[in-house]
């Protein structure tokens, strides 16, 4: 019965070590912001952080997480300047269309800006290329990341 540290809170869950983290988050703990998309770590809709690093929860067995800190989209601190900048850029540029992939997009964008505060187009394209958007909002996502980077500068 692994104990997981999720958004700063310990959660004991009765699952096999093989169970993907996303199943635990959505089905057992009701944390539904991370979405199920492809199930094979190809689309990025399920992106969460493990020790601050963006990972695909659909393909990550909980046994491998151990006691490392998990952050879901619910756990993004609004007071965090990077989170704040990304959220307001997303609103300012009206990035979202259907919205299904957007929790993953926001998680990936925040992670990118934390390591690369002023990314080039090329850095945005490769960092975000693991996050699919069937509505094709890619150009607005790229612009919004530049916008957020400008706000933070």
């Amino acid at each position: 019965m692994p104990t997981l540290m999720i958004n700063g809170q310990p959660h004991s869950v009765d699952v096999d070590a093989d169970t993907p983290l996303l199943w635990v988050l959505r089905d057992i703990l009701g944390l539904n912001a991370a979405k199920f998309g492809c199930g094979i770590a190809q689309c990025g809709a399920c992106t969460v952080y493990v020790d601050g690093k963006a990972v695909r929860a659909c393909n990550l067995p909980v046994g491998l997480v151990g006691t490392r800190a998990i952050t879901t989209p619910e756990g993004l601190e609004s007071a965090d300047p990077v989170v704040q900048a990304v959220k307001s850029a997303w609103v300012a540029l009206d990035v979202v269309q259907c919205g299904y992939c957007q929790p993953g997009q926001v998680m990936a964008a925040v992670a990118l800006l934390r390591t690369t505060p002023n990314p080039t187009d090329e850095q945005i394209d490769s960092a975000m290329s693991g996050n699919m958007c069937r509505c094709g909002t890619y150009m607005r996502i790229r612009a919004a990341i530049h916008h957020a980077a400008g706000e933070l500068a």
Partner: protein
Amino acid sequence: MTHAFSFLPAKRVSLSGTVTLTALLLATLCLPTHAAHASAAEEGTPGNTPVERGQYLTHASDCEVCHTAPGGMPYAGGRAFKIPGMGVVYSTNITADKQHGVGAWSDAEFVAAVKQGVSPGGKHLYPAMPYPAYSRLSDQDVRDIRAYLATLPTSASAAPKNNLRFPFSIRSLMIFWNIINGPTSAYPDDTSKSAQWNRGRWLVEGPGHCADCHSPRTLTFGLSSSKAFGGNTLNGWRIYNISSDPKSGIGGWTEAELAQYLSTGHADGHGTASGDMADVIGHSLRYLTPADIQAMVTYLRSTKPVSTPQDSVTFRNVANGDASLPQNSRGARLYASACAGCHLPDGTGRQSSFASIAGGRSLGADNGRNLIQVLVNGTGLQTATGVQIMPHFTGGGLSNRDLADIAAFVMTHFTTAQPHDLEKQVEQTVKERD
């Protein structure tokens, strides 16, 4: 006898010219059938009871991987071994079932099968069963393995019949093969070396039978001793050079990296085991004690260096943490969308250390042979915390050309390899896919 012998191309066999075939035959007939005295190297096997020792030795000998059909019951046999030009051999049921397994055999019969390759009724086994290596186990070791197998569930199903071309279908031909290639026997400790080295040699050359895959074969399908651990190509995979050569083998790895790789299937800076090696880690090596892993490392680092250009890879310095990838080729764009999700642009792995491909030999070795195998067939590794899967990428949205372009990008981005004809190789690998 001469006639039968002519089926085997004996020309390349490296025998001393002064030894005549007759003398060899006589020597073979005089092979000791009793147990050679157990060496000090064997004393490290943990376990308080025969069953506990047997369980450890069954893991160390990796019996399960070969004696289990894909998805089948453990030890019930039925895994196919395709031998080019000869046919198919199936592994047998070694559960304790009295009719289809080994339950009705005497201990002596079981020992003879494992160590000499002769099963009850004088039936000669094919050397897909590594009895020349297992002959280094003591009779007591083999009886302990049997004691452990007897505690497991039995299977009342027989393995499929072998499908071998004439003349390989004649089992007694193995008498001649054995004269040339094998069974050796337990050997005394090398007193000039440490106990740890001797234990390592025994584990590597005995139960571990590493050379069965990692050494090239002679023309008579014996193991090459001159190029021992110099790598081989089996079932379309490159089995890498694990000699002590710093460029082609494992001479450039630290002891800690080797120990991490053997005990978990991954070493930081060297990638993750895939294909058959993933099975060897998952079903065998990860059960060994740290002392035994260290002993194997000590021995492997002492082997004669063998140079093999196809296993030598020069890595490019890809900046750690660099999130940008060139977007100027199909392969680069495909890698960004299909691979970087787990492996990250710099190859250091997003999901877990197992997804770190940085420094893996398959990124550049042997014109992408294993890289393409992994893309086409996928691979899985059993770890202490669940199975790690790399999915295959055939039959989905990616064409053969896409996979070839991804492979070409990976090879040229992470290493200095100069790939050629990759699409043909992808096509061939897809065709051979079961």
